[in-house]
């Protein structure tokens, strides 16, 4: 089946976000040596991207590995506009965040393509429940970090619930490994794993394999 029109609008937007993240990663790959230009570019990219999809996104930025160390440049929508996200980089502290071991970082490094991590409890970073879409920054075959966005799951689930109203069957939006981002089916909620032994079929959304829309039988 095809997605109901209102759901298709939503999946097209998620697809557009993914394309935008990919563009940002490609641009960063050409600017890696520009020590001052990169944070500036990222600040304005994050502002624009978060402004473009305010009812889907929570944060945006990049983690860039310049060969000697890896830095996080991340911005997040706060009560009074955009806040810089600061993380604990002290290895001896309880809240130490080695994000180079996070799935949103290792996923694109392994696959070489976009990756949708979560929903997950980001207790070391934003301290929120998010899903993170990241794309690798590649110079040739060499991996130099990721560009990405955080989806605000409360917003996304509300959008999904409104969009899927009146659709014939039940739907589930998941990440690449079947973790539910949003669903309108009884007993399925955000964060659960979709049991793919159930009668399910993929609804084509015409985008990458980082996320999927399922029709439940």
């Amino acid at each position, binding site marked *: 089946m095809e997605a109901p029109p209102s759901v298709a609008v939503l999946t097209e937007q998620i697809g557009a976000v993914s394309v935008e993240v990919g563009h940002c990663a490609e641009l960063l790959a050409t600017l890696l040596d520009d020590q001052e230009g990169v944070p500036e570019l990222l600040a304005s990219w994050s502002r624009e991207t978060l402004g473009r999809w305010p009812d889907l996104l929570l944060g945006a930025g990049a983690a860039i590995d310049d060969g000697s160390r890896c830095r996080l440049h991340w911005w997040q929508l706060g009560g009074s506009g955009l806040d810089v996200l*600061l*993380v*604990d*980089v*002290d*290895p*001896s*502290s*309880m809240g130490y965040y080695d994000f180079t071991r996070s*799935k949103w970082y290792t996923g694109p490094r392994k696959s070489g393509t976009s990756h949708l991590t979560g*929903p*997950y*409890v980001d*207790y070391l970073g934003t*301290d*929120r*429940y998010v899903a993170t879409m990241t794309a690798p920054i590649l110079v040739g075959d060499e991996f130099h970090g990721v560009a990405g966005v955080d989806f605000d799951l409360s917003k996304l689930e509300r959008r999904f619930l409104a969009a899927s109203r009146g659709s014939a069957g039940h739907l589930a939006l998941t990440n690449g*490994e*079947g*973790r539910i981002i949003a669903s309108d089916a009884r007993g399925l909620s*955000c*964060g*659960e*794993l979709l049991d793919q032994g159930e009668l399910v079929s993929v609804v084509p959304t015409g985008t990458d394999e980082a996320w999927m829309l399922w029709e439940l039988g």
Partner: protein
Amino acid sequence: MVESADGAAEQPGRRLGEAIFAPVGEVEGRTDEIVKRIIQGISLGVLKPGEQLPTESELAAQLGVATLTVRGALAQLRERNILETRRGRVGGSFITAEPSEARAMLRERLTRLSPLDIRDIGDLRVAVSTAAVVLAARRGAISDFDHLRAAVAELGAGLGSEAFALAEQRLHLEIVALSQSPRLTRAEVEAQSEMSDVLALRHLSEDEMARVAKGFAELADLVCERRGLAARSWMEEHMAEENSELLEFYRLTVREG
């Protein structure tokens, strides 16, 4: 605060109101947290006598707090002879306290908690971790389990007692995060932070560490096999044992001090 000529600023009611709503409490809490972290860092041997701390603004950026908050914390640490500030071209803040002195300070801090606090925080941790492990077994994805096994393997890597305690706390957090529940995760973070002095001070023997590491490896297997109820029983037993040991440790330490 604006003082008016009629002395309105001196009215007790108004002062109390200001005290309740002023952001100072929050700032004091943060100052205290920084002081605690640095003392714990020294007792763990991560910060060594003679070592220079990053600048105030670097620390503020790393800790995500205002420079003023860092300045307050450094002043407190100076007063207690934990660090000294040298002026001039090679100036900065340098650690002066020895690990043993830092540990003595942590022991002193313990008396802020009562035995009831220790039991009560322990009860909360049992509730959180047993509920979380059931959900983790249901909601964890295969890729999460790889991560979990790697984190468990670190426990068995011959760590020192303090590093082991830290690794075990991180592991608890990873398991709770697998539950996909932000509220359970936050409850665990808060309980750990309240208990952190006790957890950091307690010395574990090689045998104890080996036993706990082996237990967690079994737990990881149960979670990965999605046997939530068995994992729950293991966790309940483990936490009950740990809580009674923590309370015993607390009693001994407070009596000695």
